[in-house]
C-alpha cells in the first residue's frame, strides 16, 4: 500500500493507505479525529470541511494521497487541548449557533476560513453567501450567521487567526 505523510494539527503523521482513502476517512478512521463529520459524502453539505494548507476544503472530496506532504487543521486543532475555546467556537456557544451539532465542526472551519479571506467585519449578506457550501438541518441558520459575525469580531483580538495554518 502507498504511504502518506501529513502534518495534522501540528503533528507529523505517516501511514500506509488504500489509494481510495478520502481525507475524511483518514482523519476519522486512521487518526480517530472524529470531530470532522460526513453528512452527505456527495460534496454538498460541508460537514467535512477542514483546512488544507490554510484553506477550507471538503475532506470527503479529496484523496489523502493527493495531498501528501500537506498540512491539515481539523476542528480538534483549532484550540489548545486544555485551553480556552477558539473565539469562533466560543461565539457559537454564546450565540446558540448549534442544536444537534452535526454541521458545527464544518461550519466553524468554514467560518474561520471566511474570516481569513474576508476579514473581521462580516455583514449578514456576506456570511450567508459564503455559507453556500454548508448545510444545517436544525438551526435555520439565523444563529449561525450571528455566531460567525460575533466570532469574526472576536478573532480581531488576535487569538486564533493563525490556527488556520
Amino acid at each position, binding site marked *: 500500500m*502507498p504511504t502518506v505523510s501529513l502534518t495534522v494539527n501540528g503533528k507529523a503523521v505517516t501511514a500506509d493507505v*488504500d*489509494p*481510495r482513502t*478520502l481525507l475524511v476517512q483518514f482523519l476519522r478512521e486512521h487518526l480517530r479525529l472524529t470531530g470532522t463529520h460526513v453528512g452527505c*459524502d*456527495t*460534496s454538498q453539505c*460541508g460537514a467535512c*470541511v477542514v483546512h*488544507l494548507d490554510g*484553506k*477550507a*476544503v*471538503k475532506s470527503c*472530496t*479529496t*484523496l489523502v*494521497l*493527493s495531498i*501528501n506532504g500537506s498540512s491539515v487543521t481539523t476542528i480538534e486543532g483549532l484550540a489548545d487541548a486544555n485551553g480556552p475555546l477558539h473565539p469562533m467556537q466560543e461565539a457559537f456557544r454564546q450565540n446558540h449557533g448549534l442544536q444537534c451539532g452535526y454541521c458545527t465542526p464544518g461550519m466553524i472551519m*468554514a467560518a474561520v*476560513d*471566511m474570516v481569513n*479571506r474576508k476579514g473581521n467585519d462580516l455583514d449578514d449578506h456576506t456570511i450567508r453567501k*459564503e455559507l*453556500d*457550501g*454548508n448545510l444545517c438541518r436544525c438551526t435555520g441558520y439565523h444563529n449561525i450567521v450571528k455566531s460567525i459575525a460575533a466570532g469574526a469580531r472576536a478573532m480581531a483580538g488576535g487569538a486564533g487567526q493563525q490556527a488556520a495554518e
Partner: protein
Amino acid sequence: MYNFTFHQPTTLRQAVNLLAKNEDAKLLAGGHSLLPVMKQRLASPAAIIDISRIPELSGVELKGRSVVVGAGTTHSEVANSQVLKDSIPGLAEVPASIGDPHVRHRGTIGGSIANNDPNADYPAAALGLGATIITNKRRIAADDFFQGMFTTALEPNEIITKMQFPIAKKCAYQKFKHPASGFALVGVFVSKRGSDVRVAVTGAGANGVFRVPEFEAALKKRFNAKSLDGLSVSADGMNNDIHAGPEYRAHLVGVLARRAVADANARKD
C-alpha cells in the same frame, strides 16, 4: 469507489508517459467532478494520474494581447488573479458563481473545461472569448474543442496544459442558477473585441455549449442590449428535463444575453 493505482507525477512528461503506460487511466486535477462520479461507480479508472503537483500547469500570465492560464489554476486563483481582473474582468468573475468557497479552493479551470459538463460555466467563457486550448500535443480553438455534452476534441493521451484567452475588456457572464445544485440552468457569456463579437450559451443546449450567430450579427452592428430587440432563439435543440422545459430555457438565453451585454457595457475601458 472501485480500486485504482495512484500516481502523482511532478512533470508533464512523466504524466504523459504514465498516461501512455497505464491502460484505462484517468487524470485527476481538483477531483471535484471526477471523485463524486467515482464514488457513484459511474467511473472506474484502473489508474489515477494526479496532475495537481505539476508546476507546468500552474500560473496566470499576461502574454501580448492575451492571458495564458495554467490548467491547474483553481477557481479561487482565477477569481483573485489581478492580471485577469485588469485585463479580462468578465472571466475573473465567472468562478464566483461556481459551487461554494470550498469547491473553489480545489476545482480547476482545466478540469472544468476538459469535463465539459453541459451545465458548467467555464465552457461558456472559453467559447465566448474565443480561447485557445493548449495541450501537450497541439493548440485547439474553443470552436473546435467543445463537441457536445461531456465530449471534447481531447484524445485519450492528451493533457490540457494551458488556455489562452484573448484580452477583451468588454465581456460579461450572466448565469441563472439552478436553485438546488447551483449549476447553470442557463448561462450566457458575451464579449466584444474590436469587431469580433461572441455570444456563448451553457446549460440550455441539448448538445452542450453553443454560440448564437443571430445575436452576434445584431450586436456587431451595435453592441447594445437594444440591438437584440425582437430577436429570440428557437426552443428546438434546447435541453428538456425536470428542471426546465425548452421554451423556458430559450427565453432565458435572450434575457441573460441582454443582461450580459448591459454588464459588459457598464465597464470602464
